[in-house]
């Protein structure tokens, strides 16, 4: 059974539909990337999976076989889906360690503890009592990933990890991915940087205007196929 199965997923905002029948399958242990231009619906898809948006039918999304389309975000994290939100969104009035502890609020047990996160991101250990607004963009991204790991998720959703970061920082952030995969965590990444996405993932989906336009293993996809799926020209 697939870990995550979205079938004919329809979702959107109050007066605006963003997803028009999206199909996504993620197997346990995979790293899957979703690429697509701005406004393709990538973030909407993640927000729907983690419960911030409702799908049209509860059964549009299943996690480990359970329909989760009608659940609240605080119920979905208890099942083991944790999100690294777009824009990082640290809690500004909590210091670094307290931000990480918030990730463990749901009480899921597993390999990730404060110590493990600090050894994955030594920068955070050094800044454990700093307030998030004083961190660099890269450190804030590490904080956001660390906070999600503290929930010991089965599925980690990462929204635009590289957005607004310098290339060398992006390399560091992606350098942490193998350590996360090694714990058996399944990862779904949204990425605008196509090369980065192809290198980091086992499988790639391409989205355009609220639909999946391409799906496959990075080695099997040609440049032209991706260009067509990405831009629709």
């Amino acid at each position, binding site marked *: 059974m697939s870990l995550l199965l979205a079938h004919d997923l329809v979702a959107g905002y109050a007066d605006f539909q963003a997803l028009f029948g999206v199909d996504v399958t993620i197997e346990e242990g995979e790293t899957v990337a979703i690429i697509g231009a701005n406004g393709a619906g990538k973030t909407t898809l993640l927000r729907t999976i983690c419960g*911030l948006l409702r799908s049209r039918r509860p059964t549009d999304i299943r996690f480990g076989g359970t329909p989760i389309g009608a659940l609240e975000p*605080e119920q979905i994290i208890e099942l083991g889906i*944790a999100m690294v939100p777009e824009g990082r969104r640290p*809690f500004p*009035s*909590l210091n670094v360690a*307290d931000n990480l502890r*918030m*990730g463990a*609020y749901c009480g899921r047990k597993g390999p990730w503890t404060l110590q493990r996160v600090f050894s994955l991101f030594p920068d955070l250990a050094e800044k454990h009592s700093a307030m998030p607004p004083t961190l660099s963009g890269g450190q804030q991204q590490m904080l956001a990933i660390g906070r999600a790991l503290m929930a010991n998720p089965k599925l980690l959703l990462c929204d635009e990890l590289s957005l607004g970061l310098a290339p060398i920082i992006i390399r560091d952030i992606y350098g942490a991915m193998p350590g996360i995969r090694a714990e058996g965590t399944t990862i779904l990444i949204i990425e605008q940087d196509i090369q980065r996405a192809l290198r980091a993932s086992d499988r790639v989906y391409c989205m355009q205007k609220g639909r999946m336009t391409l799906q496959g293993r990075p080695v099997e996809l040609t440049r032209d196929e991706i260009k067509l799926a990405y831009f629709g020209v």
Partner: protein
Amino acid sequence: MYWINTIVQGALVGGLYALFATGLSLMFGVMRIINLAHGDFIVLSAYLAVVVMDLIGVNPLVALAVVAPAMFGIGYLLQRGLLNFTLGDDILRPLLVTFGLSVVIENVLLEVFSADSRRLQLPWLETSSIQLGDRLAIGLMPATVFVVAVVVIGAIEFLLRWTALGRAFRATADDTDTARLYGVNNRNIYALATAIALAVVSIAGVLFGIRTIFDPTIGPARLLYAFEVVIIGGLGSLWGTLAGGIILGVAQALGAAFDPSWDTLAGHLVFLAVLLFRPQGLIPKTFDL
């Protein structure tokens, strides 16, 4: 010596004002709700103490052991059953609903208890005093109120800073959606914030009722004091709230020493001065915004 005495008495009264303000500050900090019925909840808890004292014949402090959990429960249900539905982008909705609540509570109290003034009798505490030097004595009652205020505010600060629940309060105040992503049930957190706020209100209400006479209509004036204390101290800082209470108390005491009709006015003037010259309050925020 006369002036020192006046200032000390004013500062001790400030403890009561800080207790008035703590619940208001907590609800605003976590939910951005300004509870206009806050003063009426102070009066309501004093009347609940009257009922408990009549029913089981205990003194007001023992009655508080019943009233505080009752107000905690009322606060939880009030938030879950009513105020949660007023939250959203429109800040007018909670204002209007709590204003309505204020009117309802006041009139129900009038209906049930009449407009007669009441007082919670606790003679030994009211009349005892501690002698400090030749000409300075502080009443046991004001001193108790002050100590209670410090302990209550310290306890809430501890809760906010060092417990998982406190982190959830602060995280929810910062960013509700992201807090929910990590498993915080915001509706429950809001209800707990109001529950704690009203439990503190009940302590303030009972101590207030021991200190002075009350009737069903005095709620809005207590709300005004609480509001002034929060602004003077700085929004979202509970130690600032204590400092704000002391400043308001001292201002009123000095005003009254100058001319007995000036006590409230002097407090309002200090409040206006703070709004003019230091609108962010004396101590910057600690747990929100």
